[in-house]
């Protein structure tokens, strides 16, 4: 059970990155490659709030959300809006992520920072875990449920889906596409701040976090299917569990990369069977 808990909790972290990618993808059909770095900043803001300023936990979460939302809004203005095509946005967001890593290094240094919340071990159903691992899994599932409800039942959410399906048609129906894309970016930042703050006690706040998360978050999304929140969640959990099980039972001293390799084997298998990912949909248009 311990391995299952560990796999699900680290999988939840990958899923949270994938959720961030997905929101921007749905809104603008581009990828925000700075998403993992935004979460890294969230982790550092949590460290500053909790350790440096000794703020209460709720205030720390709020601070992380506000700061990262502001940074994400800035990113939309300087790395997304001035760039017309999505391919170039991949480069500009990647560059923005690199800048964020550099700034974090300058402010907080290169060594890991401890955010000691919810790390007291406990036994659950014969396995060992810590409260923050459970919180991460709950947060990831709750976010996916909330986003799904929002996109199906609220006008803003429906407008977002309309925009993702056909930007021109959505504009003709009165949706302010530019404003909505900006809002999606800011909301992604808000969530990245929350995710980073919750993740920090599990992973430490460290500048290499962005690099460590970016690729696996993307693979989680590819396994689950681009545009699908449930897909991102299942993809994240799949990666986390595969990593742990391979690391425990198949890996030998000679190849610590086997667990990484196994993730890509799973990705290949999924894409061979279902090229759009587990929950991805093919959009068909009559011409």
């Amino acid at each position: 059970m311990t391995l299952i808990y560990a796999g699900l909790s680290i999988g939840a972290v990958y899923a949270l990155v994938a959720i961030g990618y997905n929101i921007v993808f749905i809104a603008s059909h581009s990828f925000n490659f700075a998403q993992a770095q935004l979460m890294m900043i969230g982790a550092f803001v949590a460290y500053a709030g909790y350790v440096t300023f000794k703020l209460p936990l709720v205030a720390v979460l709020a601070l992380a959300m506000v700061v990262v939302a502001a940074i994400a809004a800035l990113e939309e203005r300087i790395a997304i809006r001035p760039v017309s095509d999505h391919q170039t946005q991949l480069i500009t967001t990647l560059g923005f992520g690199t800048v964020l890593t550099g700034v974090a290094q300058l402010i907080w240094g290169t060594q890991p920072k401890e955010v000691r919340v919810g790390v007291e071990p406990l036994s659950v159903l014969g396995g060992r875990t810590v409260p923050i691992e459970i919180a991460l899994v709950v947060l990831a599932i709750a976010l996916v449920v909330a986003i799904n409800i929002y996109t199906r039942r609220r006008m803003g959410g429906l407008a977002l889906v309309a925009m993702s399906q056909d930007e021109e048609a959505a504009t003709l129906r009165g949706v302010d596409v530019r404003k909505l894309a900006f809002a999606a970016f800011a909301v992604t930042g808000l969530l990245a701040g929350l995710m980073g703050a919750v993740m920090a006690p599990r992973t430490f706040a460290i500048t290499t976090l962005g690099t460590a998360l970016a690729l696996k978050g993307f693979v989680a999304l590819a396994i689950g299917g681009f545009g699908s929140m449930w897909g991102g969640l299942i993809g994240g959990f799949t990666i986390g569990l595969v990593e742990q099980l391979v690391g425990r039972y198949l890996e030998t001293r000679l190849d610590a990369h086997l667990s990484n390799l196994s993730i890509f084997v799973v990705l290949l298998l999924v894409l061979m069977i279902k090229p759009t990912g587990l929950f991805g949909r093919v959009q068909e248009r009559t011409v």
Partner: protein
Amino acid sequence: MKRRLGLLVGLATVGSLMMTACGGNGEEPQDGGSAPYKIMISAGSDAGAQTDQLTTGVLAARAAVKVVNDAGGINGKPVELIESPDNADPQKALSNLRAQIAKDKPNAYVVASGSNVSAAVAGILRQNEIIFLDSGNAADTNKPADNPYAFHLAAPFKTVVEGYLPEFEKNGWKKIGVLHGNSAYAKQFGALAQQVFTEKGYETTVVEYDSKALDMTAQIQAVQAKNPDVLVFNGYGGPVGLVLKGITKLGWNVPILGDTSVTSTPLVTTNPPDGLIGTPETKNLKIEVTRSVNAATASDATKKAVDTMASMGEIKASLNNCLNYDAVMLLTTAANHAKSNDTKAVAEALLLPEVNTKANTAVYDTYPYTADNHQPQLPVDTHTFVAPGVLKNGQIGN
């Protein structure tokens, strides 16, 4: 007229040759003229996760240069430290070294972080007959047959690994678990630990983890399943915290011996809230230190080095990263002993016990090199194990 001119030229030539031959005496250096002794260092201010190691290594070299120059320099001439702002990037380091050789060839070269730069520059240093004191311990800088002017500074892996044996014996541990990362250093550590411990009759289980991973539960459980008496653990930076947290989460109550790279991680040498000293994560942890890192066992030469460095800047990493202090002291003693700045003469002098045991070095007391092995043959008690403590000025217990 032509005969007189020829006679004059001939006399002038013979005269100048005689003056050159008589100019030197036994007390003066045979070369170098009025030029300073030039030591080039791979330096900078940002090497990512290795920044603290880099800046500390540079500070150590600067401090040693100050000490040497205050004492009169090398063969009566000042020492000049040429800093290459390459941030431990091998390509930049190589490019800067080439440019420096073209402009003004340095007498010696040192590195401040990791072995990547060492591996990149070793060849060109060999070609240009520049002495190389390598704190990165690159694979090809300790073999005189390949490179007669290159010497390792850091303790050989074997010395580091054999340092565990007295601890095993003292505590009666028979089953050893080894958990290590997958960097080049960590892989060598793991391989040698398995070889040495197994040869000595210990039942050894070795498991490697991915240093970039964010969870090591699976790998920790793989070692735990073998129920070892003690866990030998290698890691640097974030992975150190992740492994210690993982062990605590599993409730695994096992003695842990961290290697010197664990010691270099500020997380285990800093008090909460930034660090883990006094937390359940470090309850069973002991870290491997050289006698110089332990303030209680440090020599007078170490104290002098620490005081000088502290007066010039912040010592951010452990004293293990100050091998360049020793490099400058060794070069000085060797060149002064040889009464020459010539690379071959300095390299030969470094092999002499009267040089490598009396250089007032800070990290290790001696650097016993031999003609066929340019690794310092350090005694087995070079390292000890201490409980994690606050690292101040590169030392624990300061």
